[in-house]
């Protein structure tokens, strides 16, 4: 695998005191969807702003496709696309005009631009709305247009800052499909941030858990969840007979608890252990009446590594936390 983004000890300090990004190191490989998961103000957007040449790091370095984001800023800009958190499409232009403007800013030849715009508008399913003013669009439509704009110059690396923030569940699922399609079709490398657990879980090949500007853990969603000690099988078996010994003998089983006909079986890998356990029970004359597989979710993972639940982190937050957020927002405005 080739590292497309390389970040080394990256730091960003606002106003000399607020450490929004505090010594972050990671690599993003070619063709993967890499996600930063963390609460608002954790340093996600600040990191994206540095990688997309909007902010200068206070210390450390970052390269995109081998290009330094500070020294070769303009070269970096040519190979990346950014879909920002805010809706930045122009209300007083039509969808197509927005795309056309973007294509000129990215130096796409006009003939090619027209073809690509057609293709992208189809991809994000805005065919019917393309020639309407953007001010008539819904939030989801704007976001999809924003995504299409970010793709007009076929970037090698796409940065998505909270791609589904403020969207309803249905539209969110549609966005996920678009993003997955992109990766498959164009082998595009995607760096995204999110504070939605499900989003990180279902979209990302690898996740960095970020909090207070630091990466607390970094791995595939499956490994992260597995690191909590595996999955739990809930099995209900007919009859009075005790099957603990039978289940115990199956490979991958860690722990068993029985309550009447119900067994709670902790296993290392639920999807492979389940058929083995069921087969062992059947072979020994047990009649299974129901079975379910529980897996640790990302919230438990987040809690494990950061010491707080992501859902709680969203609501509370210490003083320095909100300061950091305010400073980050201010800094963004100032640009």
């Amino acid at each position, binding site marked *: 695998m080739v590292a497309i983004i390389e970040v080394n000890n990256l730091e960003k300090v606002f106003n000399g005191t607020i450490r929004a990004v505090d010594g972050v190191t990671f690599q993003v490989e070619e063709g993967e969807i890499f996600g930063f998961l963390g609460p608002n103000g954790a340093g996600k957007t600040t990191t994206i702003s540095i990688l997309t040449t909007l902010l200068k790091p206070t210390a450390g370095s970052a390269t995109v496709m081998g290009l330094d984001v500070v020294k070769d800023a303009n070269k970096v*800009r040519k190979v990346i696309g950014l879909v920002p958190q805010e809706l*930045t499409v*122009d209300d007083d232009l039509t969808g197509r005009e927005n795309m056309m*403007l973007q294509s000129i800013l*990215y*130096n796409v030849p006009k003939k090619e631009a027209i073809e690509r715009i057609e293709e992208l508008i189809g991809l994000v399913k805005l065919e019917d709305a393309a020639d309407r003013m953007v001010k008539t669009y819904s939030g989801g439509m704007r976001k999809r247009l924003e995504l299409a704009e970010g793709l007009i110059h076929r970037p090698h690396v796409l940065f998505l800052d909270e791609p589904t923030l403020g969207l309803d569940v249905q539209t969110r699922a549609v966005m996920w499909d678009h993003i997955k399609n992109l990766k498959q079709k164009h082998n595009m490398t995607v760096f995204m941030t999110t504070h939605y657990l499900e989003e990180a879980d279902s979209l990302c090949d690898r996740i960095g858990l970020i909090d207070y500007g630091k990466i607390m853990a970094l791995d595939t969603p499956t490994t992260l969840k597995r690191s909590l000690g595996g999955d739990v099988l809930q099995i209900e078996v007919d009859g009075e007979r005790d099957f603990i010994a039978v289940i115990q003998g199956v490979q991958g089983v860690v722990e068993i608890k029985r309550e009447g006909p119900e067994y709670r079986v902790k296993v290392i890998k639920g999807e492979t252990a389940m058929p083995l356990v069921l087969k062992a029970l059947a072979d020994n004359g047990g009649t299974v009446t129901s079975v379910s597989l529980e897996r640790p979710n990302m919230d438990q993972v987040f809690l494990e590594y950061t010491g707080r639940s992501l859902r709680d982190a969203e609501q509370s937050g210490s003083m320095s936390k909100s300061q950091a957020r305010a400073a980050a927002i201010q800094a963004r405005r100032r*640009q």
Partner: protein
Amino acid sequence: MIKETWALTVRELKHWYRIKIQMFMTLIQPIVWLALFGQAFNLNKLLPAGTPTSVFQSFFGGASDYFSYMAVGMLAVMALFTTMFGGMSIVWDRRFGFLNKLRVAPIPRGAIPLSRIAASVVRSMIQVVIILIIALLFTYIPGLTGLTVSPAFNVVDLIGLFVVMLLLSVAFASLFTTIALAVQNQETLFGVINLLNLPLMFASAALFPTSMMPDWLKAVANYNPLTLAVDAARTFIFHNPNPLYDVWVDIAGLFVLAAFLLGLSIVISRKLMSAR
């Protein structure tokens, strides 16, 4: 650079002409100024009946009546008012994140201020043409005084007039675009605009001859770019025999100012738009 600037200029202008109320204001504003302010100050009446027009002309830059005098001043004042708000769109674009979108794009940083300046100048020149036409049309409306040009007024004068207004617009558009890039929010921008617009308008020969001003005010007003612009404009329109400066001095002064402020806006934008 040219392609990106052009595309962004077109965007600005689309914003302008698609908002009908803005187009309406563009038309109505000069009419209000010319019809109310211009017609109210019928200063010829101060002179005893039978006084030759040349007496009035000698005070008022060669204009035969006050309306004609102020109508030319109004061309410059409208150029100021129009370009003054040209920077507003930058503040909005910053607010809505569009400015960051431009900063992420691989475009020369200078294209950002240049497109605003170009759009401001186009709007300003359209205003100038509208005012000129309205002022001339007033001649044919009973009860109104219209703009009376010199009998020798010709095409060269007309071109000269537009060159002067163009230079003035470029200078002010650059100045206010730079200010808009530097300030963080619209309140500050409004504050700065309000601080500058009235002094710029009144401490100039736009509405009143500087020769009648007290010395301290005259000392300021004679170096106001608006004064240079209207001084040259009156030389072109009325063939004013006694201008404040030679017309080439006016044009040279405006050219140097416009070039300086334009250059400054590009240099400053580069600094303000780069990563911090």
